[in-house]
């Protein structure tokens, strides 16, 4: 298949990294699309946990918010949110946690809090949400972000969640930290130093384009792979999922008020 977008390549690449039976802590947007694509293709027994409290949810359409009714209706169980963070995430029961952010540095530390000083920010971002504890306790973290020098930076304005920061092994973090950064120009993986380097390229996207989109001096991993283009089966499943989602979200809301 050659007719696909970079978003579709990212989504498919992230989906392929998930294995059947994997317990995934999912965020809204591209991670949710990737997890559900994996579930609808090669990993039917993928277990999706959304932080709102739904466990083992099998939505037929993608949620627009982290707590859509669809997630509860199709879940194996719905638990209080404190249970999710305390008894599932903190207790080490999540295999893969997805994160994104406004800024990432070369060690996979993330900022979703402020641009500028904390007390008087130029841009106030939404904040941490579940990120600090997902970054600490998921067995692996998959980061999904579009690459640009503005977001892949040499120094964060604020560290919201930790990647391979100095002292991580003695910090109380139980998980392994970020294992991969899926971008629209290629896939980065941490080297022995903890620094993220280009580990896999997409068809038709040269390493120079990836270098130009990353704010730090991007190294190339010793034996970079090339990712196969999305297959017809993957694209059909992803596009059908997105078409179902668009149709469902066009339904008008009926209120119990005249």
């Amino acid at each position, binding site marked *: 298949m050659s007719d696909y977008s970079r978003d579709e390549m990212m989504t498919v690449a992230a989906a392929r990294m998930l294995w059947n039976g994997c317990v995934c802590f999912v965020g*809204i*947007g591209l991670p949710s699309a990737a997890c559900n694509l994996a579930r609808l293709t090669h990993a039917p027994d993928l277990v999706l946990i959304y*932080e*709102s*409290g*739904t466990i083992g949810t099998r939505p037929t359409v993608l*949620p*627009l*918010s*982290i*707590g*859509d*009714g669809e*997630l*509860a*209706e199709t879940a194996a169980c*719905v638990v*209080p*949110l*404190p249970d999710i*963070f*305390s008894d599932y*995430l*903190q207790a080490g029961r999540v295999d893969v946690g997805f994160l994104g952010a406004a800024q990432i540095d070369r060690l996979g*530390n993330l900022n979703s*809090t402020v641009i500028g000083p*904390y*007390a008087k*920010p130029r*841009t*106030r*971002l*939404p*904040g*941490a*949400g*579940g*990120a*600090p*504890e997902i*970054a*600490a*306790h998921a067995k692996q973290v998959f980061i999904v972000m579009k690459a640009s020098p503005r977001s892949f930076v040499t120094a964060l304005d*604020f*560290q919201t*969640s*930790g*990647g391979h*920061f100095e002292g*991580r092994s003695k*910090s*109380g*973090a139980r998980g392994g930290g970020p294992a991969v950064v899926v971008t629209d120009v290629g896939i980065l993986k941490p080297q022995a130093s903890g620094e993220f380097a280009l580990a896999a390229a997409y068809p038709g996207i040269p390493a120079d384009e990836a270098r130009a989109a990353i704010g730090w001096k991007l190294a190339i991993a010793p034996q970079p792979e090339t990712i196969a283009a999305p297959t017809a089966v993957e694209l059909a499943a992803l596009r059908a999922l997105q078409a179902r989602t668009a149709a469902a*979200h066009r*339904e008008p*809301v*009926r*209120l*119990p*008020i005249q």
Partner: protein
Amino acid sequence: MTEILPLSEAIARHVPDGASVALEGFTHLIPFAAGHELIRQGRRDLHLIRMTPDLIYDQLIGMGAARRLTFSWGGNPGVGSLHRLRDAVEKDWPRPLEIDEHSHAGMAAAYRAGAARLPFGLLRGYIGTDLPAHNPNIRRIHCPYTGEELATVPALNPDVTILHAQRADRHGNVAIEGIIGAQREAALAARFLIVTVEEIVNELPPAMNGVLLPHFVVGAVSHCPAGAWPSYAQGRYARDNDFYLRWDDIARDRGRFSEWMRRHVQGTADHRAFIQSLRRAAA
């Protein structure tokens, strides 16, 4: 004895200026009608508490009702920024807002501690983050058994927690179905609990393993159909995703925001009139 009151009276009697107030509900069952009533009655200097401030806190903050915000994620879910929250933090408009910022795990622990009337919540958290450097409420303790360093947050005990739920019975028992976020913990942590409901029934069936708040923890119940709109009530009505998108435009501009609030919230008597006012504007 749970009081069954009109919403305006429940707010007038139980939520004074300066109170700490938690309106909980994680994307689902957000008590919009109650938040609007706080605005209609011109509450000031509130300490607002909520994991995910959402549109209703954007409105309260933009109207200058809040002096302090305790939260863990402040965005418009699936859309982007809360522009009124941003304007308050970045430019002190319409007044400065103190920030008490947490992670979800930290706030959940603080509610759990509050519900149990313990002094602090405990978690293995706030690791690799700058939050503790900016929030003196986040501290560390050593486990007396293992020596492990753990994070603590002070218990949250709001003066008033306000929830929206599907049903209550005449005794004040409250039944909630679907995603409940931290509603149960925020309810039990409160000094006083107000619940708006879609429906009041004579008797609720026994709720084996379901979420039911027993009448003796519920201070007041108010009948308020569609009280969670534009969020949703499982089994009753869906989330109005379109409104969340439209809010991005309304809230972006101070003037447009103020005019919208004046016309549809301050200019209406109650939640039914608010929804009718929006329908007239859209017609």
